[in-house]
């Protein structure tokens, strides 16, 4: 095994656990509307920078954890997260070489697409859709992308 092939699995698991906690920590009502989807951003980062470490099994597991914690239909966030991670893995070489600003835009688009899938499933499963505020968090998520990727890039050897 050469040094290049070491997969940052420990960092991946630990950062996702921290992100999950950030996602369920209570915030004041005004702030919780703009709370970025931390776990989705972290999964997106690892799908782009270490696509072979977790494959699609890891995003699926994270999605199930989100379903359990948020009381959603089992598999709802799983499907959304697997879809976004699949696209990220498909184009990881392309995205990895973009400047940070463009990466943040891509992260925004990915988060919006993720929210779109969740919104569709909410609609199919008969939940109410009247909240327009749900489309706010991709913006804060995109703004947070440079920070998250900067922090996570220090935990492993970037390729």
């Amino acid at each position, binding site marked *: 095994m050469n040094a290049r092939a070491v997969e940052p699995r420990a960092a991946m698991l630990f950062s996702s656990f921290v992100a999950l906690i950030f996602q369920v920590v209570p915030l004041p009502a005004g702030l919780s509307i703009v709370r970025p989807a931390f776990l989705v951003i972290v999964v997106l980062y690892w799908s782009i920078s270490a696509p072979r470490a977790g494959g699609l099994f890891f995003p699926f597991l994270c999605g199930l954890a989100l379903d359990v914690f948020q009381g959603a239909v089992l598999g*709802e966030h799983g499907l959304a997260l697997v879809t976004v991670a699949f696209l990220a893995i498909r184009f990881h070489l392309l995205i990895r070489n973009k400047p940070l600003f463009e990466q943040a835009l891509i992260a925004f688009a990915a988060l919006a697409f993720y929210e779109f899938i969740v919104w569709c499933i909410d609609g199919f499963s008969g939940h*109410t859709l009247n909240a327009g505020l749900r489309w706010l968090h991709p913006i804060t998520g995109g703004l947070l992308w440079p920070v998250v990727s900067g922090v996570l890039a220090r935990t492993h050897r970037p390729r």
Partner: protein
Amino acid sequence: MFGGTGRAVQSRVAATGLSFTFYATLAVILMFLDQRGHWLDYARYGLSAAAYPVQLAVNSPSAAWHWLRGIAATRATLQQENSALRAENRALELRTLRIEALESENAKLRALAAALPDVAQKWLPAEVLNVELSTLRQRVVINKGASSGVFKGQAVLASGGLMGQVMRTGPWSSEVILITDPEHAVPVQVLRSGLRTIAVGQGNSGVMTLPYLPVNSDIKVDDLLVTSGLGGVFPAGYPVARVTDVGRDPGQPLAQVHAQPLAAIDRDREVSLVWFMPGHPAAPAPLEEVAPPPGLASAPQAVPTEPK
């Protein structure tokens, strides 16, 4: 997974299309089983047990803060609180005396031989865990679950009034849907006029709406709304909300009525789970008579709102 050559990378990337199909199908099957058949209730039960330690960990800073404040409370504040509680207790006792008289009078009026006991049979205090579920839903997690006998559809009361109902139980925790959740509806009655209607949540902890009242209905600001006992979940006569504004637009067939919940929904940490006496006149009607058979019952709310 340790492929250093280009060929290995190629084959790995090509495989993700297949594994994507696999996981996506798996997710769709899971959703179908969870939503339609309720075949995953046992899996849910186990998963919520696994989630409980994390929820406790997230709750621990605020729990520690409350504990510290309890320790740091001075003798003076405790004495003050104690005397305030004693005064409140005396007032309540006096009122209970009156209530007992009224109850027996009521029983006589109803031509019943003996005074009826209270509809609530058993109380279980529970604490709200400081854990956030989905942002746009009004739901909370409490620290009592199926091991304490909590069941799905159980009424949850807070100090001011009705708070919600149990939606999902785990072994040590359960999820409560609040009356202010947009997917929750409570059958209510205006105490002054006896008018029956349905109060629907808005996704905002301070507001409920009464969307099904005609413009000419007898409702005023400051009217008290109590549970009507229809719907099979909540017993009759528990306070729910107070009407805050009534909008009557002559061009509209329905009035726009808003009410404020009486329970301090976003502030109360202590709630009570209640068991009601079956067969009591004020008890909720047995579910079998109201709801479809258990296999088909999908919505946990008292009156299912139609999906929009």
